[in-house]
């Protein structure tokens, strides 16, 4: 087991390294324009462009540039190109509490409702409940987040002033207001995943229901609900857990960017949205690496959890 964890962690470091290289290439090699020229502005004198180039190290070789930039990111000295003296890492750290509040709350909602709807859908397969839930979950996954958010904002904060429109109140300052400000964003963020998870769970459960051991359990005379919860549901949760690991990592790592910017929650995603509007590369670069870190981390956690639960994986039969 320990060996498996170690191998997985080493793999994680390699993937992260590859990602950092790729991100570096995207921001430093792909652009067809001279970065120094862009930073210095359209009407800059050649001298100014030259000095910017030297200051930020754009005149060095690519590997050197890569090392400098990564060093800046990991020592917390990376600065924005457009806002003077804005420390990128500090801004990201400042955003973490808001982003985590949003994501953890939404995750609780989407897991509970996703599992509930998927379960109901599966045990009533083909019946009216199932059909209604199937349509609902399809609507959920087809809905652009900003559409739902706009409807919420217009009808629930403006027409009927049920909820505060936007902003984030720190949990430590006022827990009630914290939750009150986050309810709409939580629901908005959760809807897509509820739809998706209930679909996955439904099909996974329908599959498991055809397994021999389920028939055996029924033949033993266990009552239906017990078979459904103890035998079917439990075994059907595996794909949900995998998905959850990936999704939660993605959302934590700035994936909630649209929700955050619409509801004006000062998290990592909102910072990313601001940087995009200003075409400010360093924050986007840092946030992408930050986001990838969470995905890779949760990927590894899921794998390790699997290996713990299922020895076949540990022995390398499907570790690849």
């Amino acid at each position: 087991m320990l060996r498996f964890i170690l191998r997985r962690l080493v793999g994680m470091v390699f993937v992260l390294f590859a990602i950092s290289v790729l991100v570096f290439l995207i921001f430093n090699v792909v652009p067809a324009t001279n970065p120094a020229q862009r930073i210095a502005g359209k009407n800059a004198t050649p001298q100014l462009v030259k000095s910017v180039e030297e200051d930020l190290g754009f005149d060095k070789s690519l590997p050197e540039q890569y090392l400098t930039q990564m060093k800046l990111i990991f020592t917390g000295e990376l600065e924005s190109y457009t806002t003077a003296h804005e420390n990128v890492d500090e801004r990201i750290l400042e955003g973490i509490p808001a982003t985590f509040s949003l994501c953890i709350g939404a995750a609780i909602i989407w897991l509970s409702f996703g599992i509930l709807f998927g379960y109901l859908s599966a045990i009533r397969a083909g019946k009216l409940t199932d059909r209604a839930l199937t349509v609902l979950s399809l609507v959920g996954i087809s809905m652009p987040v900003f559409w739902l958010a706009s409807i919420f904002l217009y009808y629930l904060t403006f027409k009927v002033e049920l909820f505060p429109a936007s902003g984030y109140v720190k949990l430590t300052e006022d827990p009630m207001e914290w939750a009150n400000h986050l309810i709409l964003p939580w629901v908005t963020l959760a809807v897509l995943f509820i739809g998706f998870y209930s679909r996955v769970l439904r099909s996974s459960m329908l599959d498991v229901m055809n397994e021999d051991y389920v028939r055996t359990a029924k033949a033993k005379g266990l009552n239906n609900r017990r078979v459904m919860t103890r035998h079917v549901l439990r075994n059907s949760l595996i794909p949900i857990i995998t998905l959850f690991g990936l999704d939660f990592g993605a959302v934590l790592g700035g994936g909630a960017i649209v929700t955050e910017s619409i509801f004006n929650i000062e998290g990592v995603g909102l910072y990313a949205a601001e940087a995009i509007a200003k075409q400010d590369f360093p924050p986007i670069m840092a946030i992408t690496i930050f986001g990838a870190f969470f995905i890779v981390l949760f990927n590894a956690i899921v794998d390790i959890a699997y290996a713990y639960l299922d020895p076949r994986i540990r022995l390398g039969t499907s570790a690849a």
Partner: protein
Amino acid sequence: MSVEPSNPDLTDAAEPGPAGTAASSSGTGEGRGPWSLALRRLSRNWSALFALAVFLFIVIACLAAPLWANQVAETGPNETHPLEKLHVDGEVREVVEPSGAPIGPQWLEAGGKFFLGADGHLGRDEMVRLLYGGRASLFIGVTAALITTILAVVLGLLAGYFGGKTDALISRVMDVIWAFPVVLLGISLGVVLAVGGLKIGPIHISGSSLWIPTIIIGVVYTPYMARPLRGEILALREKEFVEASVAQGAGPLRIMFSELLPNLLSTIIVFFTLNIANNMLLEATLSFLGAGVQPPNSSWGTMISEGFDSLYSHPILTIIPGTMILLTVLSVNIFGDGLRDALDPKSKVRFEARSGTVEPEGTAV
């Protein structure tokens, strides 16, 4: 609407399945080939057919955008009418009031002009913009799905067929892209390319071209399709009909394209369809954030982003393009579901959810 494996008449009908019977796919003979069976199943699925009708209606409406623009609204998507006045039943209405507020929906009162009102202080016709924006969104959705499909099929075939080092290389690269948050990768590329455009050898694509978001979205989703395809090919490669083909002296190309590919078609078709839906959502997200479609082009995503500033005074400007996205994506998803049930009642694809194929994580939140 959805088929569960326990349904007896459907499992019966499903028996041959497109896989493994490529030779009989011509549909002639007894007329019970896998494709005609799939077609029959699909034609019984009224919700899928209705969804297809809705989707085609939207596509045709958007393709007919110039017709509406020239014949009915008599304006273009980017033409401004800040000072114009409409005469409705002898009443004069300003397209943009002195306060800067745009006119609301006129429906057919002004002969179809400003059907959905104007879009802001510039006084552009919202309906015309909606139709033209839809062209951009649909173009990106479909073209990016084509790009994804081609890339994924080629990469999947190479990795799955050759295995060994080729497979290891392709799979590792896919793993890295996989680990990226999709939205952030799209954004990174979108921002970078919108600034300076894209240069590939002699081809230069300007930063405001629709091709930039199209290519980005096509590339970003490639691993989500290539991975499961590779898995299927790995399994197919061991089948007897491939061995038979090898014994007959077929080369790699022939095996890949005339033996393996036909057996993957049903999977590819389903992925392609569902991909269109995901692409349109990602396009809208990128455009909403300013990393997708760039001015002077506009799409439903950019329209929402523009309309969002006046959400409280003119909610229609945000809600209508959003509803169009919802309708289009929903119809594609319902049709795609029906297609999957019809082509593949045992649902190989559905369980790829384990690897996040149908809805890649972080799709558009």
